[in-house]
């Protein structure tokens, strides 16, 4: 069998197994759990996106230019790192409830790819700011990162909403 096909079959089997586990069935049966978890997910997205926007606008010099980059990062980076686990956990609950709806969904897969990319980039930039190395970054990097960051996070939010509309066979 072709490797790609093996992965798809394995993923299919994993999803069918997961959706029959007691924990998945419990989430599916209790009607309030999914809307509550989704609300928590959206609220966390709001906190994360606003923190990201504050950092990126400062890096671009479009807002709070009177404040040092380090201070703006010290205020808002922790918001990002604290809401991310909440987002992953609430996302995980949604996956457990309906594994195939997300794991086999192109919008979800794209979302995870973009997420991994921006988290890695942001971690790197965050370390540079903390250790006072951001000033010595190239001008391309200093203006490019915030723009890429905004574009990726917005794409992640849209991809998330598209999960509900992309049909999974």
């Amino acid at each position: 069998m072709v490797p790609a096909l093996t992965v798809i079959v394995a993923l299919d089997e994993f999803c069918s197994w997961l959706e029959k586990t007691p924990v998945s069935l419990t989430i599916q049966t209790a009607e309030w759990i999914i809307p509550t978890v989704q609300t928590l997910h959206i609220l966390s997205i709001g906190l994360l996106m606003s923190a990201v926007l504050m950092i990126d606008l400062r890096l671009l010099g479009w807002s709070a230019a009177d404040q040092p980059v380090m201070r703006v990062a010290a205020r808002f980076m922790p918001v990002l790192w604290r809401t991310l686990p909440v987002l992953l956990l609430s996302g995980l609950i949604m996956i457990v409830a309906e594994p195939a709806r997300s794991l086999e969904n192109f919008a979800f897969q794209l979302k995870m790819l973009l997420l991994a990319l921006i988290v890695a980039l942001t971690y790197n930039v965050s370390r540079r700011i903390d250790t006072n190395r951001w000033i010595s970054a190239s001008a391309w990097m200093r203006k490019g990162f915030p723009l890429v960051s905004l574009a990726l996070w917005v794409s992640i939010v849209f991809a998330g909403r598209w999960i509900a509309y992309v049909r999974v066979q």
Partner: protein
Amino acid sequence: MTLDQLLDRLYATPIATVLRENALLFPWVEGLHVLAITMVFGSISIVDVRLMGLASRERSVDQMSAAVLPVTWAAFTIALITGSLLFASNAPGYAHNFYFRCKLALIVLAGINMLIFQVVLNPNTNRNAAADVIPRSDRIVGALSIGLWMAVIACGRWIGFTMIGGS
């Protein structure tokens, strides 16, 4: 014309029809709506936690408002426009949805809370720039604002689960 006739007329407008019948357009508008409303909540919460004295205390309320509220207003405008489009696509359905009505009422309450702060409380509040003391009125307004916007988002999500064909 009764309200129901008005809703039916809105439902029949070309723009509402396009949104309803185009399978791609609705998710894009809805995605933009979700993005905008998360930015409304997230940005206003930055001002609210400052009002409550929980963060950014080295900056004044006015400084925080000047830096953040333009984002809130821009996001609210986008949320209002996209929300109106989504509403038009199924006007009678949304208008009779319990959670939609709650959501509108909560937005009005959040607006009143903000107006009371801007018009009555803020001009009469004595603040130090460093904010050693957080006025009680500031704490109450901040807490109410965060709570109301959280409830707005919760209602929004519940609309999706209580509308026929929603997701």
